[in-house]
């Protein structure tokens, strides 16, 4: 049986009910990869982020930055992709709301030849 098959009494699922509030706070899981220049920064980052439903990329980036040591910054020129689709850089990117199971890929550009 899937969770969607469960028939909850309507009163328990009503907006603002304890159960509805509890379900709304179940975090979504976002997979995270960091690569490129100074990829060793990834050792400070989890493979998964638990974020509230509806969190957007900008908020996720703030969460990611918060997990790094104070003297380590995500480069503003770092490329961002969600599920493989390029969004721009940390300094300049479009607004995207994340969904459970999405993957954020951050790549600090490299130029070594």
């Amino acid at each position, binding site marked *: 049986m899937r969770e969607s098959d469960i028939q909850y009494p309507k009163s328990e699922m009503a907006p603002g009910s304890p159960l509805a509030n509890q379900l709304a706070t179940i975090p979504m899981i976002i997979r995270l990869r960091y690569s490129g220049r100074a990829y060793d920064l990834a050792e400070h980052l989890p493979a998964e982020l638990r974020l509230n439903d509806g969190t957007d990329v900008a908020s996720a980036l703030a969460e990611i930055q918060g997990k790094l040591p104070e003297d380590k910054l995500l480069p503003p020129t770092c490329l961002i992709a969600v599920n493989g689709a390029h969004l721009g850089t940390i300094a300049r990117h479009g607004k995207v709301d994340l969904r459970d199971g999405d993957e954020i890929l951050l790549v600090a550009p490299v*130029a*070594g030849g």
Partner: protein
Amino acid sequence: MTIMSSPPLPELSADEWERYARQLGPGVVSPEGQRRLKASSVLVTRAGGMGGPAALALAMAGVGRIILAHSGCLTSADLNRQVLGDEAAVGRPRVEVFADRLRSINRFVAVEALDHEPGDEEALTLARRVDVLLACPPNFAERMRLNRAAVTAGKPLVDAAQWGLSGTLTVVQPGRTACLACVCPTEPPFEENFPVVGAISLAIGSLAALEAIKIIAGIGQPQMGRLWVFDLFQGFCSQMELQRNLQCKVCGE
């Protein structure tokens, strides 16, 4: 997938067909593709860590003319990754050494050696002469220069870059895909003396050559408009579908 135009193609000698016999066949290189390779010219700049193995693979595959651009003399510290060099060549102008090495690998290939990195004007002149550009320099300024030249000349650019045990690879098809300036509108910081293990240089350089071979020979699916990320430190590979910036200062419409 045929990207290049079709000028009259040269014939190959019996010795040349014998040389390339193992790369001919269904799903590999067609006889026409081999003739396209012979008719083609590729610019490789620079020819060190990744450009060296890329140029080597292009020469072995039978690209008709390879133009190498790389200044300076070979140093001992280059030999952890610059596969076209050797102990005896330390202290010699590296591009001469590298060009001689390519000629020794394949007598059917013409190799030109430029002992400097081309500036804006020369880069554009070279871009117009060749069929594909391979950008393998150690800084963003040169990459962006080659990108501008490729976009202006309308020629495919294969951009290969590395750091540590990782690398990235992308193919720019002007007018169809994102160019390097779309992806990096602001030049990222980078250190010229970046750390690198030679094995990744050879791997990324070889893949860059393969992209050029696919484009020229009209085979397979070149990785156009995608950024390939090879992170062999963390043990994963990934791809990013790059977004073109229609307001891009270099390729915007």
